[in-house]
């Protein structure tokens, strides 16, 4: 019996320790208090990005872009594939210049708490006011046709929530089924829906329909998933319910869990998807000169 305690103890500790290494943008449940530095850095980053986007708009009419920012911790030890040079950006959103909520509004999915998430429309400053571990951003500009398709889908047809469709959240959601959804998979579903409409399939409105289209159209072959390392002890811990509430592996095939690496969508995956579908015009990275994490941000449980 004593050995059972020891096993339970070790499983909990090891699961916690390994997952704690990924602590960053948090589980969504904790209240976060930003100090002056957190505000200053978020505003400087958004100002820099806003200046860049406006220049691009004036030069070539860019009005919809994919943005990738860092989370609150480096994924270097977790991501084994490191898809494209943009693998270290862990959270994506799509920004629309001509949006009724405001110029360059970011529409993205955020983890509220546990398995709950929602779609938010936010200003650029708010996009960076989330305790990133590095103040940097990658801007991927789709071709004008896809930009127009995305604008039509999200701004004109107002389908942002349909592509979410009250999904259940997991930070390591499997991009190839609809059991769970995370923020980057939401963007993949949005891009897929826009591509479906461009191809004449105008009945794709929900994430389930987008996923069907991803498979039926063959676009799935263009998805290069990131592989996230999951140790056996973590897998066991998650299965026993010891892991964080915002991560589960139950939507991944047993073979992936056995191999210790599960598939998910990273920003690198999204940019590679745009590139491989011949919809990517350009990518640009921007960063603050002092890109380091704001030191005066605290979490309140």
């Amino acid at each position, binding site marked *: 019996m004593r050995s059972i305690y020891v096993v339970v103890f070790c499983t909990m500790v090891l699961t916690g320790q390994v997952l704690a290494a990924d602590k960053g943008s948090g589980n969504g449940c904790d209240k*976060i208090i930003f*100090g002056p530095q957190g505000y200053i850095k978020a*505003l400087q980053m958004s100002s820099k990005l806003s200046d860049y986007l406006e220049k691009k708009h004036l030069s070539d009419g860019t009005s919809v872009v994919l943005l990738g920012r860092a*989370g609150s911790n480096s994924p270097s030890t977790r991501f084994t594939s490191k898809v494209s040079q943009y693998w270290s950006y862990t959270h994506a959103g799509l920004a629309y210049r001509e949006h009724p909520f405001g110029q360059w509004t970011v529409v993205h999915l955020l983890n509220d708490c546990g398995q709950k998430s929602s779609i938010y429309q936010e*200003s650029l400053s708010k996009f960076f006011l989330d305790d990133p571990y590095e103040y940097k951003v990658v801007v991927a500009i789709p071709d004008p046709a896809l930009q127009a398709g995305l604008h039509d889908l999200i701004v004109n047809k107002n389908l942002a929530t349909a592509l979410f469709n009250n999904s259940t959240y997991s930070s390591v959601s499997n991009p190839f089924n609809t059991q769970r959804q995370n923020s980057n998979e939401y963007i993949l579903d949005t891009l897929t829906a826009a591509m479906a409409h461009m191809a004449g399939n105008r009945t794709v409105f929900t994430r389930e329909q987008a996923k069907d289209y991803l498979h039926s159209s063959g676009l799935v072959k263009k998805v290069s998933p990131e592989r996230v390392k999951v140790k056996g002890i973590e897998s066991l811990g998650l299965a026993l319910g010891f892991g964080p509430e915002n991560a589960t592996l139950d939507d991944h095939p047993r073979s992936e869990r056995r191999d210790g690496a599960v598939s998910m969508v990273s920003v690198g995956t999204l940019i590679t998807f745009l590139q491989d579908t011949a919809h990517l015009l350009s990518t640009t990275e921007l960063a603050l000169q002092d890109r380091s994490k704001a030191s005066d941000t605290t979490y309140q449980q």
Partner: protein
Amino acid sequence: MYNAFTTNTALLFSPLQKFTGRRLLAVGLLVGVMLFPGASFADGSKTMSKGSGQVSKGSVTLSEGASQLLASAGRSAVNFVVDSIEVAGDIAEITLVSAAKTSQAGVTVSVSVSASTLTSLAIAAGTVINMMAVLNESQAQILSYLLLDGTRVLIFVTQTGSTLSIVSEKL
């Protein structure tokens, strides 16, 4: 027959063993709770949505003297005192005056916030507030202002007409 799942395990432990087992379990639970903060393999969270007036929208109008005072302070905060608070409907207008005795007259700042934000800020006439200009990277342009209680950010405000706002809406 002995069965680990049906036998009353309490009877099988010596007092010392019971203590060790319970302690292990308790420590395990404690460590587990402390170390399971949530994975963020690939995502942003909505942690700050539960913040208070920290991110509330507000706009600010500065007198020329106040602009000069804040610009010359650079990244440092300048002390102001709440001179008056006027609430009309949903809008609260807070007037701040420079706390420096040597300050010239007319160094005033007028901050406009929602009445609910004012309630959450819990400030009154006479309260000392620090104000800091947020400059861009090259320190050449003021992006916004922070109103602070010491180092605690009370509210973020932009100059009227600024496009740099911190706004968020759940769909």
